[in-house]
């Protein structure tokens, strides 16, 4: 019965953080089970104390710093992408709003002249291109504006 009582205390006895009472000491002295348990616990204690302490490789700090830089670069790329998308969305909103405003003020009207379209389709490539000059010019202006905005934002960030 005393062996079971001592069982939860074996490790504390082995690492000397618990002193046995005279009664328990007398039991241990005559009990092979308890003596062996304590010896095993002391062996484990000793092995744990003697375990090797692994050292990181010499380039460990360098590797950490490289990963920090890589992480920062990834974060900056994500910010750049978000910024560019925001700019594109902003431009799209401005264009749509401008067109909407012009249309509501009667400055812009959309008419579909089916006959003219058919005629345009009948003409050669030059004719088709000429009919799209306005659209191409508007697109070029918008693209230039977007590039200028992007360049300005990059310059301001640096």
């Amino acid at each position, binding site marked *: 019965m005393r062996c079971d009582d001592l069982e939860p205390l074996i*490790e*504390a006895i082995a*690492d000397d953080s618990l002193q046995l009472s005279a009664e328990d000491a007398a039991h241990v002295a005559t009990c092979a089970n308890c003596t062996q348990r304590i010896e095993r616990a002391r062996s484990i204690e000793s092995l*744990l104390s003697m375990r090797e302490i*692994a*050292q*990181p490789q010499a380039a*460990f700090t360098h590797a*950490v*710093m490289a990963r920090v830089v890589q992480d920062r670069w990834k974060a900056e790329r994500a910010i750049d992408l978000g910024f560019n998308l925001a700019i594109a969305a902003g431009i799209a909103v401005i264009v749509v709003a401008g067109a909407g405003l012009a249309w509501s003020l009667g400055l812009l009207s959309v008419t579909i002249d089916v006959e003219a379209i058919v005629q345009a389709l009948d003409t050669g490539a030059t004719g088709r291109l000429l009919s799209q000059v306005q659209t191409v010019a508007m697109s070029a202006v918008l693209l230039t504006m977007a590039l200028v905005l992007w360049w300005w934002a990059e310059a301001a960030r640096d």
Partner: protein
Amino acid sequence: MRSTEHELIERCRQGDETAFRELVDQYKGLVFALVARSITNRARAEELSQDVFLKVHKGLPYFRGEAKLSTWIYRIVINVLSQERPDLATASLDDRDQNDRPRVQPAADDRAFGDLVMKDRLHKAIEQLPLQYQVLVNGHYLKGMRYEDLAEALNMPMGTVKTHLHRAKRRLRHLLETEYR
């Protein structure tokens, strides 16, 4: 917090890479030793130790200095190990949940104790312990880690740390008496 530690943290927060390099140099030994004692694969242990410092780098702006820097870093180590070994992180520490009694009569012949093979068995047995026990057993026997550090990192009172350490070693003894004979 010591003034030098405070200064180091402040310099790191200001983006001083030299300061962060100093911080890594200061703690890499303990962090790696602690991780390597739980993760057998050395390359993986290196990678996880680097992850610890990346988390430190990201978390420094939010570190309020209520705990010591070392305690905070040990907590990150425990988190990283928990993510790596979720099975052990959630393992019960309650002795009643475990078949913790020796299944072999302790008096049985056991000549293997004390020999070199025992080290390998011990290592395998430690790997079977719940993560908190592993951190206790691995950390307690590392030079430079004190009871107080472990108690704070594991968010346990000092007395509980000692109790859990004894329980961890008892479970180790039982594992060595049964599974790893």
